[in-house]
């Protein structure tokens, strides 16, 4: 039925947008923007159409073509299958892609190489959507590597020495991770046959874990190691702060939604849909991963504290926030898994707000350091409000989405065999407050800069906040609060996350 073609259409939509945009000459800005926004809107609409079909009726539209031959004749297929978790992540990326496109059009007005930028930009989203819909490990690996390839030109967009170095570092890490995942997938396929994602874990992986636990654990380490690179777990995280050199929309979409989330999404897939939570628990691989995640959470927040640049601080906060998801998933309790999965979305929305505001500050006031934000409240009121909401969300104060996910994680920690994780959550929240509140204080209550030190004669006067940049930032701030308040609605992220968690533990 037509639904089976929907996942393919969603992936090919962005690819076709890219194919249209690449040959466009630089000055065709108007045409390029319309094509971009049209693509984004149709994608969001299509995802919205899928939500009732998949979540309510439980349908699993699927599209597959034979891709790699196996020994005995039949081929391992490339499978695109829509299940609640896939829809969850695809929805997030579709929505935020629309907002980031608007932001990017405003941000890059008049800059060189925009056709190339937007071409790779839509290819990147195509890879992300493909990654979320992938139905087996091979397809996931294909889109995982494609994502690396496509984000390289985005990180190196400005073309100067710094961004080239950052892009090279990123490529080295990402390709290393990719090769590790490739070896893991090859090994798993040879030992347990082609692995399909199935709720509650693939059957033949379970019997592999039963027959030779050591081998299964080793393969698990390989896979998680490879995915850990993109989800910036501690030893493998140093590419993320370095990649902050990229333009703001890139760091917004990539490091809030696409690249980082792809790694974590992979870990959720491996833990829940390849091994299955029980099998992973018996193998005893969850606890070490939990320890690494906790360490990353603390270490990320600590490093963020020491940064003086806004974007660097946000980068390290991403490092720690992303590990919350890993925390939730590896705590072997239904509430914690729901909390982890829902944090996947909440963190995306909040972090993209903060990156939008950072871009706004840099663009309008030329403020890169935190100290330069003194008195920004009066000069850029709307951006500062959005920034504050985002900051409160990160800390986890009640009305925002952050509170919901941290609350859920806390509940999960209590009923899980690792109560000490609650302490980690509390400490991390305190650290979040420690590095976000001074910034908020500086923005609102920082005394107006004395005229002679600040050459900006405008002193306290209002600075024009470009609408194209401001609207997306405010939207995401409103969504953050909206999701926090309306957490109990039927199709709210929390409900879908609970639904997924039940599937995992069934």
């Amino acid at each position, binding site marked *: 039925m037509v639904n089976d073609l929907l996942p393919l259409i969603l992936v090919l939509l962005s690819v076709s947008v890219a194919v249209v945009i690449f040959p466009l000459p630089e000055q065709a800005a108007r045409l390029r923007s319309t094509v971009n926004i049209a693509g984004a809107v149709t994608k969001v609409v299509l995802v919205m159409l899928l939500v009732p079909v998949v979540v309510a009726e439980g349908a699993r539209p699927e599209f597959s073509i034979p891709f*790699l031959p196996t020994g005995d004749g039949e081929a391992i297929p490339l499978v695109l299958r829509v299940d609640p978790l896939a829809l969850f992540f695809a929805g997030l990326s579709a929505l935020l892609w629309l907002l980031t496109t608007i932001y990017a059009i405003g941000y890059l007005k008049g800059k060189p190489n925009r056709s190339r930028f937007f071409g790779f930009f839509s290819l990147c989203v195509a890879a992300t959507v493909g990654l979320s819909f992938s139905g087996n490990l091979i397809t996931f690996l294909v889109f995982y590597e494609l994502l690396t390839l496509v984000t390289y030109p985005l990180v190196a967009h400005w073309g100067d020495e710094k961004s080239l170095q950052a892009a090279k570092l990123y490529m080295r890490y990402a390709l290393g991770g990719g090769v590790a995942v490739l070896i893991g997938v090859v090994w798993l396929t040879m030992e347990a046959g082609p692995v399909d994602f199935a709720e509650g874990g693939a059957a033949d992986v379970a019997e592999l874990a039963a027959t030779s636990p050591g081998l299964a654990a080793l393969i698990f380490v390989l896979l998680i190691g490879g995915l850990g690179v993109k989800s910036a777990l501690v030893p493998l995280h140093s590419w993320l702060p370095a990649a902050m050199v990229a333009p703001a929309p890139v760091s917004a979409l990539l490091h809030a939604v696409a690249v980082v989330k792809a790694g974590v999404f992979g870990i959720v897939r491996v833990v829940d849909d390849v091994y299955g939570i029980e099998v992973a628990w018996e193998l005893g691989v969850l606890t070490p991963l939990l320890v690494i995640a906790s360490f990353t959470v603390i270490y990320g927040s600590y490093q963020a504290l020491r940064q003086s640049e806004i974007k660097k601080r946000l980068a390290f906060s991403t490092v720690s926030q992303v590990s919350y998801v890993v925390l939730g998933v590896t705590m072997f309790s239904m509430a914690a898994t729901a909390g982890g999965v829902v944090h996947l979305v909440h963190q995306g929305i909040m972090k993209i707000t903060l990156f939008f505001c950072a871009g706004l500050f840099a663009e309008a006031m030329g403020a890169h350091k935190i100290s330069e934000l003194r008195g920004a409240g009066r000069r850029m009121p709307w951006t500062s409000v959005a920034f504050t909401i985002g900051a409160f969300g990160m800390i986890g104060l009640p009305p925002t989405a952050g509170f919901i996910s941290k609350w859920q994680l806390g509940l999960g920690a209590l009923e899980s065999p690792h109560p000490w994780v609650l302490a980690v959550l509390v400490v991390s929240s305190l650290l979040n407050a420690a590095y976000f509140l001074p910034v908020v204080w500086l923005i609102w209550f920082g005394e107006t800069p004395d005229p002679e030190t600040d050459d900006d004669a405008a002193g306290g006067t209002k600075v024009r906040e470009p609408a194209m940049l401001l609207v997306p930032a405010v939207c995401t701030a409103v969504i953050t609060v909206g999701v926090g308040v309306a957490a109990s609605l039927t199709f709210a992220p929390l409900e879908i996350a609970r639904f997924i968690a039940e599937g995992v533990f069934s």
Partner: protein
Amino acid sequence: MTELVEFSLGALVLLPLLAAAVVMLIGHTARRVLGVVTAVVTAGFTVPVVATVADGDAPELVLGGFTAPLGITLRGDGLAAVFLAGTALIAVVLTVFAALVPAATGEHLTPSGWRPGHPGFWPLWLGCWAGLNGVYVSGDLFNLYVGLELVGLTAVALVALGGRKSWDPALRYLFIAVLGSLLFLTGVGLLAAVTGTLDIAQARAVLEEVEDPTAGLLALSLMTVGLGMKIALVPMHRWLVPAHSAAPAVVSPILSGLVIKAGLVILLRVWLWAVPLVAEAIWLAWLLGALGAIAVLVGSVLALRQDRLKPLVAYSTIAQIGYWFLAFPLLVTEHDDAGAAPGAYSAIVALAVGHMVAKGGLFAAAGYLKLRFGTDEIARLRGAGAQYPALILAMGACAVGLIGLPVSLGFAGKWQLATAAVGAQQWWVVVVIAAGTLLAAGYLLRGIAPLLLQAPQESDHQLPDTGDETAPAAAGSKTRAEGAGELLILLLGVATIGTGFLGSWIYDLLGVGLW
């Protein structure tokens, strides 16, 4: 239907040969037209062969009606069909490219000095293509030698078209190529002495009864050394880089992409068809595997240290050749227990065809850039991407194919090689593949990244030499034909990605006519 297929088996070789002969008589522009027409028609003839093989049976043509031991039979089995199709795709694109951009075919000497473009390219290239097709479909050992020699000599002549600096590499290539063919001929002589026939299938039948394997083993090793020289396996690879980088723009993809594959196909014919795998042959396979691993590492490291684009791409060829030989130990071990996945054989073919498409595109792009900017030094080509976006995109796509990243035939080949290695418990193969992939990413990035990203004018650092840091001025404005040439190279890049989905189809194709 069988009538057409048998006719097309013969036509695949004799038609380009006829065109090569006729093209020597006509003028320059007429040569380009006839060349393109022949390319399209010959590619057309591959369709019935591939179609017949796709639905299961391997067509055979008994030349002249004289049966096997005396006459020659042409066989279009799976291996032949896959390589015919790959060669046809690349050959058509390169022929049209050579027709559109005549300057890419070398430099010819007129009384008033050197002029770009060489009309002598056409007969040699069509002859080379005929030889390639002859080698793929031939079922007779001596015929393989004659085909190999035809490909070798025309390849040497094609290199020599590149003007004064390409003569010395061409001569070195001639020595090694002919020595390789002579060693192969010695092997053929030895086999003819032992088996009394020159036909591959019959030779195999006789060799299986002969209980004393030494003659078969000696013939196998002589042929392997000879063909190793032709394919430029590591210890015998020193001729490849100067020859491929001095060759004209459109000739280096032909050399790297197509000519080397002739040696590989014959090697596979000898190892899998002609000589039965006896226990003693295992050490030879392991030697090839070790040389393959060394080739991958040495080729990649040397490629990393190149500062010019074409030698870099040539060294990457040496590295990719290493992968094909890496699979030989797996080929042998799998052969005994037929149950294990015969992945190694289809891995070699997938890697070879993937390399054919990707390397063809990359070398064509590198040659084209050298043609437009007069130099292939990476430092001075910095920022060339601004004027040639489609070209850089094509180079990126081809680099994906060479590194072996997903959705490319290279990935499918590496995947099958890795699974076969894991199946046969050969972990070192997986390690070499991983190292090779990362190194390949390293040197290809080093080659292509500076082209892609141009620091805006106000970049602070000055280039070491006094050249202004804006992209070096291209030789004159880009004519419409060269624009079309660029799109052709992009077509090769897209083909690299497109063929990525054919992994399993090629696997089924290869099953036809396997010994």
